[in-house]
């Protein structure tokens, strides 16, 4: 079959298998995508989605199975060869080289600069700092640049691996629009995401992977979500009742656990005030770059605020080092897991790391006790530990779970969660909401920023909305519909008040 007719698929993979030593990542994966089609590739964490994308784009070699590109059988020796043939991926982890500036990164992959800039601005990053070291750019920007670079090479088949996981709603909308337009122009797209709303919005078909094998191929139509979940997990998921959590703070009396007043950090965050009580989960909603990164950095001791106060249990504190913040009970789960993980060390050491931080704990480790603590955290978050020898070998979602598990293992007083469910599958997300509620019920205070607005109702008692460096609104769980949150996030509610500040 030399030439393709319009009915035959652009890409057709069947029976693909791949092992990593003892770990079977794929054993019977199939994926087909036609011209102008958007196919969702779905599956729980560790199902093998990223592995399949890496195989299709020549980054990994498969052990068995056949791959046909435009009817011709074969595979690519390298990602460069795949790109030359029109197959372009955006991998799950940012792929620009952190020690080079953006312009050099473009040169390295021979990406046309004009096209790149055009796409970047179309995707909501109008002024790309070409001479900035990419390692210093925020995660969301990195993802946008990855996509802009992929689009600039005019791919015939575009593979997006959790492209939107780190993006706030405004940017997600742009990405979806662009991707849909690409498909309408006859390009083919393979789309990986754990967010069902996105699948429903743009995908034509959904291929479901479970434990390394393709188990279903369904047209996307109303009501398909349940079917996909059932195939993904091998069982139906009991629906959650979005419990409007009574804001029954455990220690309603006395000063709040955390009281922030007039906090300003750098040029982005100016004059933020709010209270967070023990037993409460306070959501933080913001579009990209409204100062939420700086807020969390300041509360975790990574940056000194320029103005304002942070009070913990009624006492003013200033953090000169993350260790100070930890001593005050603050623990941060950062947005970018690459900042939090020891990639070349075992899962166990990653989870147990905070246990040995202080010099008093530098001596012999009680291995039995540590093993028990770690095992409990792993079980609680259902971490897939088949490749636990090195954290970098875990799937993206499982890496993310490790960053959370670390703090479950040590116990928390005030937990600062920055987009903690990035790249985590539906079932585990629920587990994490449950976990967050449990921790709050046990007296922890939790600040929860999320780029996925649905999560506010699923986990929080109330939420504050930050726009342009200020708290512009406060919304109770009951009213935290996506529409309400969106309106507030765009600064459209008009009220500029400091949330939760009693006179």
């Amino acid at each position, binding site marked *: 079959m030399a030439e393709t007719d319009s009915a035959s698929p652009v890409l057709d993979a069947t029976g693909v298998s791949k092992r990593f*030593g003892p770990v079977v990542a794929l054993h019977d994966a199939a994926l087909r995508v036609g011209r102008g089609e958007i196919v969702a590739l779905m599956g729980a964490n560790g199902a093998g989605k990223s592995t399949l994308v890496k195989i299709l784009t020549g980054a990994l*070699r498969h*052990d068995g199975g056949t791959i046909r590109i435009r009817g011709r059988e074969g595979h690519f020796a390298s990602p460069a060869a795949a790109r030359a043939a029109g197959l372009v991926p955006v991998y799950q982890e940012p792929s620009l080289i952190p020690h080079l500036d953006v312009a050099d990164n473009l040169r390295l992959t021979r990406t046309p600069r004009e096209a790149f800039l055009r796409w970047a601005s179309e995707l909501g990053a109008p002024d790309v700092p070409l001479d900035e070291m990419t390692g210093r750019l925020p995660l969301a920007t990195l993802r946008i640049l990855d996509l802009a670079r992929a689009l600039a090479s005019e791919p015939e088949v575009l593979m997006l691996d959790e492209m939107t996981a780190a993006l706030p709603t405004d940017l997600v909308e742009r990405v979806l629009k662009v991707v849909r337009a690409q498909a309408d122009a006859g390009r083919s797209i393979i789309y990986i995401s754990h967010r069902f709303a996105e699948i429903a919005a743009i995908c034509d078909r959904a291929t479901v992977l479970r434990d390394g094998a393709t188990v279903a191929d369904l047209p996307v139509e109303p009501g398909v979500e349940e079917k996909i979940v059932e195939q993904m997990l091998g069982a139906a998921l009991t629906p959650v009742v979005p419990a409007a959590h009574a804001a029954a703070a455990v220690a309603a009396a006395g000063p709040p656990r955390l009281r922030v007043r007039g906090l300003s950090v750098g040029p982005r965050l100016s004059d933020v005030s709010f209270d967070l009580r023990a037993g409460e989960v306070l959501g933080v909603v913001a579009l990209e770059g409204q100062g939420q990164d700086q807020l969390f950095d300041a509360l975790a001791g990574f940056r000194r605020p320029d103005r304002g106060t942070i009070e913990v249990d009624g006492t003013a504190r200033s953090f000169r080092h993350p260790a100070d913040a930890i001593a005050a009970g603050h623990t941060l789960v950062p947005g970018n897991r690459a900042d939090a993980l020891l990639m070349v060390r075992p899962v166990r050491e990653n989870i147990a790391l905070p246990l040995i*931080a202080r010099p008093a704990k530098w001596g012999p480790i009680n291995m039995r006790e540590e093993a028990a603590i770690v095992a409990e955290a792993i079980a609680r978050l259902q971490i897939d530990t088949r490749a636990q020898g090195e954290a970098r070998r875990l799937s993206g979602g499982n890496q993310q779970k490790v960053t959370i598990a670390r703090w479950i293992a040590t116990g928390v007083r005030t937990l600062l969660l920055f987009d903690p469910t990035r790249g985590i599958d539906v079932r585990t997300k629920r587990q994490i909401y449950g976990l967050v509620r449990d921790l709050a019920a046990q007296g922890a205070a939790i600040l929860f920023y999320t780029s996925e607005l649905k999560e506010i109702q699923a986990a929080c008692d109330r939420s504050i909305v930050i726009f342009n460096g200020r708290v512009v609104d406060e919304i109770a769980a009951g009213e935290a519909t996506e529409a309400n949150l969106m309106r507030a996030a765009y600064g459209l509610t008009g009220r500029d008040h400091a949330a939760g500040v009693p006179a």
Partner: protein
Amino acid sequence: MTDAASSAPARAAGFLRRYPVVTLLILLAVLTAGLQVTSLIMYGKPIVNQLWFGNRLNYAIALAMLAACQTITMFTGGIDLSAAVVATIVAFVTATLTPSLGAGPAILVAMLPALAVGLLNGFGIGVCRVHPLIMTLGSGLIATGFLLVYQRTVIATGTEVPAALVWLGTGRTLGLPNVLVVFLPFAAFLIWAQGRWGFGRLLYAVGANENAARLSGVRIWQVHMALYLVAALIAGLTGLVYVGQIRQASLSLALPLLLPAVAATVIGGTSIFGGRGSYAGTIVGAMILAVLVSLLTLLQIPEGARRILFGAVILAVTAVYVRLSDQG
């Protein structure tokens, strides 16, 4: 990350990754056998005997002890180029003070410069954030200067290597070198502590991702301070062991051991980028080098060519090892 399919090299890589030290031990055995065969062919008699073994073991132990400084600093992505100078100073000061103070007090006083260099390194690297390569190179040079000044002030006094150190360095019991009395507990402790002490784990953590360690509440400067202090004390201990073997203190005593010590660490599988490695590997690395030196001497190659070969072998072993164990 490219990955060969489950072909022979991939399987070998998997084995290597799981049992790095075993692989090195196989290499050691092959080298030793090669040495024996070469000797039989060239001279018609075996070279590997008890005397040879004790002699090589002595050398390997001194090397492995100095390499301990390199190994633990390399866990964090650092290095300690001042180690050989520190070893030399401790040995020299001990030998010059022994006639007047006696062995015990002389050793105690001699450890003070080691302490000072360790603190200086820790301060420079941990607090001032100077790169370890530059910092330890600089502190090593400064220490060398002090050693020269010191030498001029003690020019009249004689030197004496304490008898206990000579017993340790040259004596044998049941055919085994006495230095094992020091080295076995030393090595066992390091191997235990690297994985099962909080401090050992932190060294890997700092090397793997400093930011993640900080995020978990680690004050990085404290780790560096303690690390370089420990490294300097180990270097001092090495000086004492080594001067017992050589039985004479000189101004360049341990200096020729420095680069082989770095090589032993790298051959032993410790990553120069930090986060990975084991002291067990370093010990085998030191033994491999000890056998290699023996082999090159036996072949009666001229000094220049010998060094070239030595360097080439180190490069080859390291390249193969890194390539195989990092793959996949």
